[in-house]
């Protein structure tokens, strides 16, 4: 019972990290950008949920609006802030993304509200399901199902569609892809759209576990996702997913060993474990294919 409960918690928390880390990794593998504004995509999705709920839209439409809104915002971020900097160095791009992140946060705080807004979950989500003696909450269960669906969907996209195959090729050798006549900006825009879509799904799961939206809500999960992406090997997609679940497992799995005295140090202890892991495997668990990028 205990074990199953932990497993469910690991999968539902790790799944959120995995989706976010995957979004970071997809963009990094193709554009060489570590997008620190990724968290703001979550926040945008969060506010879109609040907004469309206030219009009384049905839940599936609300979720669709959140995901598509985040995807569109990611594409716009690229179009407005990153495309003009296409030939810039990795560091310059990273600083640009800090700028984008700050602008978004200030806008949410001043233009929307500095305080959090509660999000009312639909009735059925607060319930539990019973599986052969185990009681499992609907929230983690939906999280796991949605995560699995997103990961499988992305895998099929990357293997079966021309655009997906081109994205995998672009992570190896971007210039070669354009030498084949494939539109570079379409490949890049798609990678941003997918990262936004994944951030939107992650936001839905995160909000369903926390029940509120605030201007800084994206910061912590994306920081964790960044750590997860590094655990897995920055730029490696499989690595990002694995890293997300490993980080989830470290966080959830450390709980029974923590006392009231050590509990506040949980994140520090988890990070210590990550540092030790990186000492053994400096390139992460599943290192990225080394492309032409330095």
């Amino acid at each position, binding site marked *: 019972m205990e074990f199953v409960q932990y497993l469910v918690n690991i999968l539902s928390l790790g799944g959120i990290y995995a989706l976010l880390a995957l979004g970071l990794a997809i963009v990094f593998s193709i554009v060489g950008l570590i997008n620190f504004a990724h968290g703001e995509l979550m926040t945008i999705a969060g506010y879109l949920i609040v907004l469309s709920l206030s219009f009384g839209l049905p839940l599936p439409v609300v979720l669709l609006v959140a995901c598509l809104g985040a995807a569109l915002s990611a594409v716009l971020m690229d179009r407005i802030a990153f495309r003009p900097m296409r030939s810039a160095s990795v560091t310059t791009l990273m600083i640009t993304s800090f700028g984008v992140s700050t602008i978004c946060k200030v806008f949410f705080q001043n233009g929307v509200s500095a305080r959090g807004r509660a999000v009312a979950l639909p009735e059925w989500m607060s319930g539990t399901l019973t599986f052969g003696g185990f009681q499992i909450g609907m929230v983690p269960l939906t999280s796991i199902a949605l995560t699995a669906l997103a990961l499988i969907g992305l895998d099929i996209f990357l293997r079966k569609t021309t655009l997906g195959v081109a994205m*995998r090729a672009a992570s*190896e050798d971007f210039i070669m892809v*354009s*030498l084949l*006549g494939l539109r570079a900006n379409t490949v890049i825009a798609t990678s941003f759209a997918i990262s936004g879509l994944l951030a939107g799904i992650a936001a839905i799961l995160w909000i369903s576990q926390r029940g509120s939206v605030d201007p800084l809500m994206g910061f912590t999960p994306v920081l964790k996702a960044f750590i997860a992406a590094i655990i897995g090997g920055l730029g490696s997609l499989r690595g990002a997913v694995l890293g997300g679940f490993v980080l989830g497992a470290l966080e959830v799995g450390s709980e029974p060993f923590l006392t009231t005295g050590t509990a506040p140090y949980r994140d520090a202890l988890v990070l210590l474990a990550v540092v030790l892991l990186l000492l053994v495997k400096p390139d992460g668990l599943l290192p990225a294919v080394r492309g032409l990028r330095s």
Partner: protein
Amino acid sequence: MLRVEGMKIRYGAVQAVHGVDLNVGNGELVTLIGANGAGKSSILAGIAGSIPPAEGKVLLKGQPLTGLPADVISRKGIALTPEGRRVFAHLTVGENLHLGGAAFAKGNELRARRDSMLSRFPILAERIDQKAGSLSGGEQQMLAIARSLMSQPDLLLLDEPSLGLAPQTIDKVYELIEDLRKQGLTILLVEQNVELALSVADRGYVVANGRIALSGTASELASSDLVRQAYLAI
């Protein structure tokens, strides 16, 4: 078919190509020969648009390509098979071929192009689901050329297709190049193996220090003092 006028290429402060003029006629096989670092690959990259020239003009069938990005130039009919082959190592042979044609054909037409490429290269057909990175050097070169041919280009730019290959494999690659030429494909071939290049080419240019040092028909070049002394070591 192709005309290059006054092409200059810079890498930051380093100038690699100092005003090169060349032209390639319809159905011709023209070669660029020259030593390491002479600027041959830079010229091809300048034509294909993967490195935008700092100055000069590139015209394909009279149409200016100057300043266009690589993907647009490719769709206008120029395919580059770059130095070092650059197949997508983690994609399968089939996926590599698919991407080669995806910007030019869809659905059944794309499949038909792929199937005709596979019957031309049986070795690739056998390895269709294998990762390209697991192929031998010669097989990767064949795949790189096949991937370029998927676009059915008007002009094929080949950069050192013999590099690092065993002698029998080089023979096979050159048989293929001669075949393509016989079918009427226009080819601009870069080679360090001067004897080999001049044996298949109609005309050639000798590139030295980013300039054209000499040009002429293949037989003129093969008998010129410069080529004999500097590149054929006769």
